[in-house]
């Protein structure tokens, strides 16, 4: 039986899970927003990683078919998206009943019938919108966390109603979302995949009747390749899905890390510091790494590692969130734009407005002041991004500077403007020829390091005792 290893990184903003095989290859990833109930956050991330691992196995089994017919891959990805939507739908149904409970049990909602009806209408509007975003791939780079997606759509619908509804309905949302988020849902993989395939029938089978409007030319062309062959393909897939669903993903060992690690129901020797895990993960992907910068939701870490990926020293920000991911979140809220739009807007800047950045909250005030005096939003955003990186640079300097290869990890590494300034400033300060690494899985580095420690049975299988420690 193949052995698998799980790493869970319970961060302050997001919880991540990674499953690796006995060759250190990532086979499953899961991510969710961290919530009051840390165990649920960890379980959801783990559940997602296991589903993702099954899809990875499925793709591996179908590797030959996919190479021969690239359209299969598209279909497989669509199944995965539909599969995710169906999980989302269950939670939405649960949220609906929670809304009903909230309304029934609170005196704030005088005309209960009216509010129940309003909620029903809103859910019936937002559910198909979200479904289409999932199965037609329109989610883009937006957040896919349940709370964020529902919050966005729900707010849009509430704002369309009479103003008097706003406060009670948003209150109902706040009261209802938390218990739903903190509940764990179990799904049957096979049943849910079958259901996902049924859901896709409307997309694929009805293709001939679909007008080209709203569907890309490319997509249309791709779909034509499937036409006529669709029923046969789904039958073949179902056979493989049955195999993959029954396949036991045996987790031989696991390691928990991140801020919430102490709350994970893991044995003590399966809990590891996120500093060690981030460094180990980053070093595994880029073995020549000697300095790691990790910018997470609520902390920034500058870590120096040796040639084995073991930490020699580290520095973290202590007293201020300016310079962390949350700073960006706060600015996005201030500007009423999505977090994912921040970086691309900053990259459109023509100049960088100087921002003080000593404090997240004050940066918000500074931002408003600068808008008042006529500075362009994108120019201010560029300045804000640079300010964050300037703080990170100070932390790097404190930790001993950049040595050899530099790897940038954490959720904020996905922001292109931050990445631009990190690259610029690291090179400016430590040399143009310095290699800077960023990986698409940057946010998962802590979980990856955890999984790798789990595979090495924590301490038992570290590098040879004779190995030289320095460098």
């Amino acid at each position: 039986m193949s052995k698998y290893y799980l790493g869970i990184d319970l961060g302050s903003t997001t919880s991540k899970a990674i499953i690796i095989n006995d060759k250190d290859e990532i086979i499953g990833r899961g991510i969710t927003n961290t919530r009051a109930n840390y165990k649920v956050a960890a379980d959801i991330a783990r559940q997602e990683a296991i589903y993702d691992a099954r899809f990875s196995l499925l793709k591996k089994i179908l590797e030959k078919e996919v190479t021969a017919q690239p359209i299969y891959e598209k279909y497989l990805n669509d199944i995965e998206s539909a599969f995710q939507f169906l999980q989302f739908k269950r939670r939405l149904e649960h949220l609906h009943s929670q809304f009903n409970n909230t309304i029934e049990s609170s005196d704030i909602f005088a005309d209960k019938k009216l509010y129940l009806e309003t909620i029903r209408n809103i859910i019936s509007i937002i559910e198909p919108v979200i479904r289409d975003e999932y199965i037609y791939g329109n989610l883009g780079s937006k957040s896919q966390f349940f709370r964020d997606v529902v919050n966005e759509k729900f707010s849009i619908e509430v704002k369309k109603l009479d103003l008097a509804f706003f406060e009670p309905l948003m209150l109902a949302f706040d009261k209802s979302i938390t218990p739903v988020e903190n509940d764990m849902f179990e799904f049957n993989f096979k049943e849910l995949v079958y259901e996902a395939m049924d859901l896709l029938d409307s997309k694929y089978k009805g293709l001939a009747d679909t007008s080209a409007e709203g569907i890309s030319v490319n997509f249309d062309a791709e779909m034509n390749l499937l036409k006529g062959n669709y029923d046969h393909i789904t039958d073949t897939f179902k056979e493989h899905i049955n195999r993959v669903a029954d396949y036991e993903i045996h987790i031989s060992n696991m390691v928990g890390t991140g801020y919430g690690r102490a709350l994970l129901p893991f044995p003590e020797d399966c809990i590891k510091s996120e500093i060690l895990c981030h460094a180990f993960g980053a070093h595994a992907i880029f073995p020549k790494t000697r300095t790691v910068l990790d910018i997470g939701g609520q902390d920034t870490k500058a870590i120096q590692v040796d040639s084995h990926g073991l930490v020699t020293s580290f520095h973290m920000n202590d007293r201020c969130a300016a310079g962390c991911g949350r700073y960006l979140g706060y600015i996005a809220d201030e500007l009423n734009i999505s977090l994912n739009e921040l970086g691309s807007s900053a990259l459109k800047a023509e100049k960088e407005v100087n921002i003080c950045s000593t404090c997240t909250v004050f940066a918000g005030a500074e931002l408003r002041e600068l808008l008042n005096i006529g500075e362009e939003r994108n120019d201010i955003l560029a300045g804000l991004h640079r300010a964050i990186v300037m703080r990170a640079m100070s932390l790097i300097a404190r930790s001993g500077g950049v040595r050899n290869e530099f790897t940038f990890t954490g959720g904020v590494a996905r922001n292109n403007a931050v990445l631009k300034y990190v690259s610029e400033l690291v090179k400016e300060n430590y040399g143009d020829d310095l290699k800077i690494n960023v990986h698409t899985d940057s946010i998962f580095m802590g979980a990856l390091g955890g999984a790798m420690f789990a595979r090495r049975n924590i301490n038992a299988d570290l590098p040879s005792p004779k190995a030289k420690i320095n460098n």
Partner: protein
Amino acid sequence: MSQEVSKEKSMILQKEMIGGLLDDLSITKETGKKVVYTFVPGNLSELIRAFDMLPVYPEINALQSGMRKISGNYIRDAEKAGHFEDVCTYVKCDIGMMINGNIGPTGKKLPDPDLLLLSYTGCFTFMKWFENLERIYPGVPVAMLHTPYQENGKITPEMTQYMVKQLKEDVIPKMEKVSGKKFDESKLKQTLAESVKVEDLIVKIFDTTKNRPSPIDAYFAGVYYIGPINIGFRGTPEAVTYYEELYKEILYRVENKLGPITPEGEVDEKIRLVVEGPPNWTSFREFWKLFYDHGAVIVSSSYTKVGGVYDTGFRHDPERPLETLGEYCMHCYTNLNLPQRIELLSKSIKDYHADGILVNSIKSCNSFSAGQLIMMREIEEKLEIPVGFIESDLVDPRYFSYSNIKNRLDSFFQMLNQRKTISN
């Protein structure tokens, strides 16, 4: 953790000594004894004793207020009186205590100073501190002893002459005037002879951490061990008795291979560390527990040298009484330059076989904190050992973040354990 702690004889002796001093301080009106306010680094205990005066150390009062969890209120009151947030919290705690009636650790009022003896050894804040005390106690004479910084890492004859000149021309005349007694050199020499015995014992005590397991924690217990010499008992027969007793107790632990005593019993040594920087006093027990829970034992610390550095060979010399007082002041830890501090820490790491070094950077203490990052880098590169860095404060409870410090220490200990695994 295997056993509950019972009070050892040395602990009882120390309690009696300090209790006796505080009692003496509470009856100065009756006895007519004069009181000198002065500082721990570069403290002229022997000279104060030679004039039969009693010392009061504002830093000790502040750290005791911190341990008794009342420093927060004192700091608040000092800030209300106009002292800025970033000012040294020892100063603010001290001023807050004075605003609130100058009630000492025993609950009795401390006597007002008859002399402010400003021994300035590398900490600029000391000057500002006593400028404030001068305003609080108008008319009280101030004797300033300016200690030249060891910028070039050595003490020249001119530097010693400068110290002696100040002692002769300013400090001693003021002490004579305040105490009403003539300077008695032979009495000073006798006191200094006792100091030498104490200093020999101190070095032997802190050198026992060479053993595995170390019989003592040279930081968390070390700060108790240096208590008597930092509160004015250096140069007294009581101090000699105390340190002899303490050394005997420690040797018993060495012979029986016992680890350090903590508030929760004996610690099972797993990690050996050198620590640079003062401890946090407001959460002292919690801070200590973060170490002993991981089996981390401090085998040497720079803070325990704050009242005098003796392990590099310095001893008071009774035959050169004023010169030796001057040289003692110039040897103070905070008066050493950075290469000297690096050398001292490096030597401790090597001599006591430490697995790593940890810096506790104190937010409001410039004299200790300045240069610590450079020191860390140099030691890391020179000795190729792991370094850790945490931040807290002396007595301002607002700057001790338990979870932040725990998170960093947990990571640091895991990092050390990992490296020990591969190097064994």
